[in-house]
């Protein structure tokens, strides 16, 4: 059975990536683990854009440009998040979200 040129296959994969990212967000107990899980959510969105770009869009460059935009956003988000986590770890000696959720001392 050929499933690789069917739009619904890619949409289901993207939905599963979103769900896995959500699960990791809830389940992980460290900020870096939550950051890793958020990458899955962003990748699910980008895969969705690319699937619609290939199968339904009139201009096949738009989806690629948007997926590239998402990659740039994810890189910027990861840079900022990693530096925030380093600062938080320096100040609290801990990166458990349950301990640092007060955001001040």
């Amino acid at each position, binding site marked *: 059975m050929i499933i690789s040129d069917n739009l619904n296959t890619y949409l289901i994969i993207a939905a599963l990536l979103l769900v896995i990212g959500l699960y990791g967000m809830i389940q992980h107990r460290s900020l870096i*683990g939550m950051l*890793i899980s958020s990458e899955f959510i962003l990748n699910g969105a980008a895969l969705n854009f690319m699937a619609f770009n290939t199968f339904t869009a009139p201009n096949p460059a738009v989806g690629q440009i948007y997926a590239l935009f998402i990659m740039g956003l994810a890189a910027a988000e990861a840079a900022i998040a990693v530096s925030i986590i380093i600062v938080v770890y320096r100040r609290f000696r*801990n990166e458990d979200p349950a301990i640092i959720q007060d955001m001040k001392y």
Partner: protein
Amino acid sequence: MILYRYIAEALFYAFMILTFMGAFMAVRSQLLMHAVIGLAVSLLGIAGLYFHLGSTFLAVMQVLIYVGAVCIMIAMGIMLGNTPSQLAEKNLKGRNLLLAIGSCAAVFLALFATLSRTGFAPAAERIGDMSIQFVGENLLLQYCLAFELISLILLTAIIGSIILARGGRDGAVK
């Protein structure tokens, strides 16, 4: 010709398995470094899916930006932060597993029900192709704003992360 189709299909299944195995490794592993390796494996699988969708450019960019830059940056963040042995014993513990699985299943079922009832019609006419030349022309002419926004966001992120992480080990800003 039909043999090539079957090889491509088998590769598609392989990339799909790679994506989900990596993702499960990333969300379920105790050590954070294993989670980063799982993230890298999963992103490689997604690069293969982009290849199947016809975009060589995005597949290469996925490997370059995500696997090459973002994963390395997160690994650096892990090494600069907590030590792995401290995190291993408390990571993935004490959270409500049933609630997490239930909420994720609810989200997935809602999405699945939506997309199984919707028919997506292909466009009446398509202009251009998936080539890197067409993407480049569109990116620099018609969708120039996206290009400029990416550069602006990356510049802001670089400056912001330098300012945030500037101080020494004791947190004092020199």
